[in-house]
């Protein structure tokens, strides 16, 4: 029972990160119907930004308190990553908005590979660690051990997701985003600046991925190819929840977190986790292609 609760905490921790990245996939898909395959690598870049800025801030010369350094690192990662995503959108995706949709998807794949290999060529393949912003404290409640890092990850992710949900549902920007997603040709007639809204969507998606990246870097190592696996898992989360649906992405993220943590418990080896996740995706796509929270789209003839 105690191990079970422990595993649930682990799953929540991992699921939070997946959910944060899945949001980026789902928002971009919702607004321009593009599977932004580069998003996992944008997440990877964000962890590198967090690594460099975090290391600089935590150097002994500055003597910043951990929480301040953590906040600054996250903010910087969010800004740099948002800028990167907006640039990618501007130079790689925008020229293709009128082109067949496949062209844009291929471009996204290309951008992702470019980011991976460019990072590999410039920074190198060695795994790196983010500096410790907080000293790890372990608490034990009723035999269940958990660390302050775990709590921070779960809490920060939940807060960010709540914030995003509020932005999309309650603010003018959110309303504009929903309008563009609903009907891209009518929205500009109502005075919605479509191009800016698309840029804002990319920026928001990338900065949420940067939150995920900073949190992820606090627990795991950083390397140029991490974006592939984490990106795919987040992507499956988005599809499982119903791509284009923001709450679906959150639910999907946690589901995938549970799949990853509980696969080794049930099956003999952790190497089966990709198999389980992708088979789940395949079956879901065959029987319920619009995801758990998505709605089926009827094709007009």
């Amino acid at each position: 029972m105690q191990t079970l609760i422990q595993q649930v905490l682990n799953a929540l921790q991992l699921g939070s990160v997946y959910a944060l990245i899945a949001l980026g996939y789902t928002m971009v898909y919702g607004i321009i119907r593009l599977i932004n395959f580069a998003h996992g690598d944008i997440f990877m870049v964000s962890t590198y930004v967090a690594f460099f800025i975090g290391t600089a801030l935590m150097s002994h010369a500055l003597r910043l308190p951990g929480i301040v350094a953590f906040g600054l690192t996250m903010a910087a990662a969010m800004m740099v990553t948002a800028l990167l995503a907006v640039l990618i959108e501007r130079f790689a995706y925008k020229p293709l908005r009128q082109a067949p949709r496949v062209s844009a998807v291929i471009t996204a794949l290309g951008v992702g590979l470019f980011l991976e290999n460019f990072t590999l060529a410039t920074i190198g393949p060695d795994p790196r660690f983010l500096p410790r912003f907080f000293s790890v404290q372990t608490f034990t409640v009723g035999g269940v051990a958990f660390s302050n890092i775990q709590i921070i990850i779960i809490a920060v992710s939940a807060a960010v997701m709540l914030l995003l949900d509020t932005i999309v549902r309650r603010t003018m920007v959110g309303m504009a985003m929903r309008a563009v997603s609903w009907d891209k040709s009518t929205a500009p007639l109502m005075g919605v600046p479509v191009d800016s809204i698309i840029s804002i969507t990319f920026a928001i998606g990338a900065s949420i991925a940067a939150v995920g990246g900073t949190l992820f870097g606090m627990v795991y190592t950083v390397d140029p190819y991490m974006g592939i696996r984490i990106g795919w898992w987040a992507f499956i989360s988005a599809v499982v929840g119903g791509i284009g649906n923001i709450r679906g992405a959150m639910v999907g993220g946690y589901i995938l977190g549970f799949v990853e943590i509980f696969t080794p418990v049930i099956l003999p080896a952790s190497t089966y986790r990709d198999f389980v996740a992708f088979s789940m995706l395949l079956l879901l796509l065959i029987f319920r292609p619009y995801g758990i929270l998505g709605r089926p789209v009827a094709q007009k003839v």
Partner: protein
Amino acid sequence: MKRPSFSFLTPVLTPVRVAYASLPFSVRRWTMPILLVLFFVVALLSPSFINLYWQQVLIYVGINIILTASLNLVNGYMGEFSVGHAGFMAVGAYVASILTVWVFPRWGLEAYIAYLFPIALLVGGLAAGLTGLVIAFPSFRTRGDYLAIVTLAWNMIVKSVLENIDAIGGPRGFMGMQKLTSVAWVYVWVVFTIYLLRNLVYSNFGRGTLSIREDEIASSLVSVDTRKVKITVFVVAAFFAGIAGGLFAHIIQFINPRSFSILKSTDVLVMVYLGGISSLGGSILGATVYTVLLELLRPLQVWRWVVGPLLLVLLMIFRPRGIMGMQEWPFLIPREERAERVAALMERIRGRREAFAATAPVGGSSD
């Protein structure tokens, strides 16, 4: 973008063309077979005058042509978006390798292995073709993005399954294959692939494939059996990917699940779109240009992996049709079809001339 001009060749080429065209058809029909046999002889003799490195490059070019042309059938001619071609390649590679390393020697056939190689390849291709059904059935229900995800998931599942089967090496890979792939073998398979795909594409069945690309619902209304077409196309494409996988395994002599990851699939995608969709000639060019380019960039080390993706992005933005998208080399088009196309072209030119004549007094044409 301006096309490179080869007009300086005209004085040389035109007399040759005119002389060739004046030959009777009974002579001209033999040109292609004779050329093919000639090239085969050259391929057969190539080990004696090409060094090992360039032989290997040639073999990779051939393998990539097979992969590209077969993926073009799905992504170009049928207009689906498959991103899991490496998955089928993996099935073919592993099945063919198991046959040549374990099964044939166990049956005491080790001495004949060079002759049994094509059988191993065919069995590998058939196995891959069977798994093509895994993609074909979901394609009845989903299209576009979702089908792309299905193919991607398929690629990941194959890789994951191979990593978990310890008997064939798991993540460590599988080795012990002899170097059975030669330039001549690859040449034969390339010719076979292109010949078969060309006949497929220009058949009645091929029209059905094209009609699915343009509008699936409309094509089913004009009695195209879309399910049958989809199954056949996916199975045929997977079959050739499997063949390519077998050839690949027997030149590199060591395969592991990682060689068939999504990166490999992306490489094939780059070649398809570089060459141009719905064009077998484009697939040949795309595969050749990309493979040779990557070899020439070898001195750049890791940076050369930056070039491919960058090329892909620039290509999509500035020349989404690739080198020759939707165009074809005349000799890859069946004769009757070619005659029809020429007639249609002449008709169009005549129409334009008449239209021009009608507006001539105003002067200046926008053409």
